[in-house]
């Protein structure tokens, strides 16, 4: 690995290790670091104090530093950067690192470490950070020699952003940060061992196009990989979908890769996806998976997943291919490169598409659409959570402002995914793979730092928001006008929903007892608090929230017993969706085999 390569030291002047680290970060384009100081990283904080190129955002908990960096990375396409101290600083960051690993978010996290001569001695605030974070990161490093410092930072950024992006940890012993070290520029030579394939095999592209041209019931299923490949990939996806006239569905992580308002969009798929998207998957004869990973939330019961389809899977990570679902045409590469090649191959292939069959396919899809699986009735005074999210979307749309939506995890997250339409990539920040409660507030914070003039909203639940509520203090310190929109049903709603459907309505520990007064809580954190208790107050509160030029907590008191539908119960195939409350008995018929699934 290049990090252990001895650079040419004779040519470089020696500077304290901490300064060398910052110089390398600057060369890597870092403008912002989210962090929290402590003993082992004091040399870096001292170096930060004496420079102006890199801005430091002081969070209130290290987990939030990583989520904020994720929000920053996801909303900009850049690598997010984190700085935490040794021991508890590093262990607190672990949840964020695994979150970034699961959702393929590029992060470089610098962790302090006790000096090299104390490593292994159970020193104060010592933890085996590289050991603990090995399965939590894409890669990690412990720098033991000053001359490796700069090269390791450059290597870390290359690894974080190349191939399938992910989090990388650099563990920095305190003596290495103090001792003079040489600087070296980022290497121009290819990496010694890590060189992911980005250009697709043209033969596979041709096979894929031939399958798609012959398809009578095609579906394009696009995921977070398209977003990770940059805005150009999303534009190319749009071009390809419109060129083919095929229906397109997005995964939770892929929302925004294809515009929600496009008539060819059939909505999100998966456990809480739309009826039409899931039935398209079930009945398709050819499926094109662009940068998604056949996650269990998407596939449902594997042996009944899209049973009659030929499957084309385009992914940058070879280990994603044939992992859960066996595919007919694997295509390895970067989503933008693959889509560009597919568009060219589609034009070159003279076969005419199955026009008549496609028209019939769209008639089927329109019939599924006519069920209006996301319809709900807002009657009376009690605010339906779906209505709250829908009005939030409509009213923010009217403002015409560029909007970034983050979420916590649970029912509110699924409602946000269902009722907020995303027209562009990088506007949707959610914890998909790990499902981390407490993600949304710091992620919105990171997005707001990157886009100071944009509207950044955390759609939250009253339980999740308490998991990183301390970040309200960070919002106040940096005057970040993040809006926290709490769907308050006084329950851990998704837990309660599963308990209702699968555990006989025994609501074991899912009631949010002794909640704080969120309006007063907001005020205590120097923010504006507001509350909507009845349906007629909802719009006013949303308008007031958006109009306020500062952080807001809007406490939206919603129906307490609302369930999130449609739903594919655990262990069921796509064609056995529960559409609404009157079909809940279907969930009660879930087998024990289904119940063991999360």
């Amino acid at each position, binding site marked *: *690995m290049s990090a*252990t390569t001895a650079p040419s030291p004779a040519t470089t002047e020696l500077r304290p290790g901490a300064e060398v680290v910052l110089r390398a970060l600057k060369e890597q384009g870092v403008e912002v670091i989210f962090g929290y100081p402590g003993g082992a990283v004091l040399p870096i904080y001292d170096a930060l104090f004496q420079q102006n190129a890199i801005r430091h955002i002081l969070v209130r908990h290290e987990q939030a530093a990583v989520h904020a960096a994720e929000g920053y990375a996801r909303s900009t396409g850049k690598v997010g950067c984190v700085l935490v101290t040794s021991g508890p600083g590093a262990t607190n960051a672990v949840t964020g690192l695994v979150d970034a690993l699961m959702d393929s978010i590029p992060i470089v996290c610098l962790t302090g470490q006790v000096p090299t001569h104390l490593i292994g001695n159970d020193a104060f605030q010592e933890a085996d950070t*590289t*050991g603990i974070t*090995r*399965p939590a990161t*894409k*890669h*990690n490093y*412990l720098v033991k020699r000053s001359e490796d410092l700069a090269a390791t930072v450059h290597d870390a950024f290359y*690894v974080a952003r190349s*191939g*399938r992006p992910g989090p990388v940890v650099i563990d920095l012993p305190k003596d290495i940060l103090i001792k003079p070290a040489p600087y070296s520029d980022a290497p121009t030579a290819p990496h*010694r*061992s*890590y060189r*992911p394939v980005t250009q697709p095999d043209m033969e596979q592209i041709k096979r894929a196009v031939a399958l798609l041209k012959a398809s009578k019931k095609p579906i394009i299923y696009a995921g977070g990989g398209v977003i990770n490949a940059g805005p150009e990939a999303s534009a190319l996806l749009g071009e390809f979908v419109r060129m083919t006239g095929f229906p397109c569905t997005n995964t939770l992580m892929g929302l925004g890769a294809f515009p929600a308002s496009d008539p060819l969009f059939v909505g999100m798929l998966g456990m809480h996806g739309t009826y039409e998207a899931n039935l398209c998957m079930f009945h398709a004869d050819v499926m094109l998976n662009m940068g998604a990973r056949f996650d269990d939330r998407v596939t449902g019961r594997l042996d009944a997943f899209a049973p009659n389809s030929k499957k084309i899977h385009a992914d940058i*990570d*070879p*280990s994603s*291919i*044939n*992992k859960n679902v*066996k595919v007919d045409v694997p295509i390895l590469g970067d989503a933008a490169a693959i889509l560009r090649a597919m568009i060219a191959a589609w034009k070159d292939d003279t076969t005419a598409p199955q026009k008549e069959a496609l028209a019939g396919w769209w008639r089927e899809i329109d019939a599924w659409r006519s069920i209006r699986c996301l319809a709900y009735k807002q009657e009376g005074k009690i605010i339906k959570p779906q209505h709250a999210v829908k009005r939030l979307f409509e009213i923010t749309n009217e403002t015409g402002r560029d909007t970034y939506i983050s979420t916590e995890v649970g029912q509110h997250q699924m409602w946000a995914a269902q009722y907020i339409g995303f027209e562009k990539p990088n506007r949707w920040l959610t914890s998909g793979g790990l499902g981390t409660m407490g993600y949304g507030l710091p992620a919105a914070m990171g997005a707001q730092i990157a886009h100071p003039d944009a509207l950044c909203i955390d759609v939250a639940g009253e339980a999740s928001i308490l998991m990183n509520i301390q970040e309200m203090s960070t919002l106040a310190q940096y005057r970040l006008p993040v809006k926290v929109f709490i769907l308050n049903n006084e329950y851990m709603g998704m837990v309660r929903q599963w308990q209702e459907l699968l555990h006989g309505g025994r609501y074991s520990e899912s009631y949010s007892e002794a909640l704080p007064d969120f309006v007063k809580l907001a005020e205590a954190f120097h923010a504006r608090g507001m509350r909507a208790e009845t349906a007629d107050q909802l719009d006013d509160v949303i308008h007031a929230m958006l109009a306020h030029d500062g952080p807001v907590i809007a406490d939206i008191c919603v129906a307490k017993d609302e369930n999130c539908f449609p739903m594919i119960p655990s262990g069921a195939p796509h064609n056995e969706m529960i559409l609404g409350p009157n079909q809940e008995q279907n969930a009660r018929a879930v087998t024990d085999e289904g119940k063991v699934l999360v």
Partner: protein
Amino acid sequence: MSDTHIRNATIAVLVENESGVLARVIGLFSGRGYNIDSLTVAPVDDTGRLSRITVVTSGTDMVIEQIKAQLDRLVPVHKVSDLSLEGPHLTRELALIKVSGQGDHRVEALRLADAFRARVVDATTESFIFEMTGNAEKIDAFCALMKPLGLAEVCRTGAVAMARGARGI
């Protein structure tokens, strides 16, 4: 590809010889629930920068493909080669086998050792240590024969393996 048939695979992995690389490989196997039947590792080039890991594992074709893909995407991994799939290959293992006994048992042990081309590397009036190389089956067979003759201790390296023919990994 078969979904249910379990096969053995001998996989050679060329890695950067850096700290933690073995932990990464082993952690991958334990974290994802793959089997390790044996694993050997040592530096293999004169600069000491490259190590070769030979891992013997088992699983369905789909699982073994996953193992290879997961190994290949580790940052310090240069090359992953499935020797079981890529044509004929040699497998060797080194074993030290201690047999304690007296009288006829000693004579019989020596005679069998000769037949198996095991070398005596240590001897007392009551024991031998045999050194033996071969594939796993040969060592298994020898150990089974030594059992009634006073098998006291076995130490094995696990398999190292290489593809036959002129081409390097």
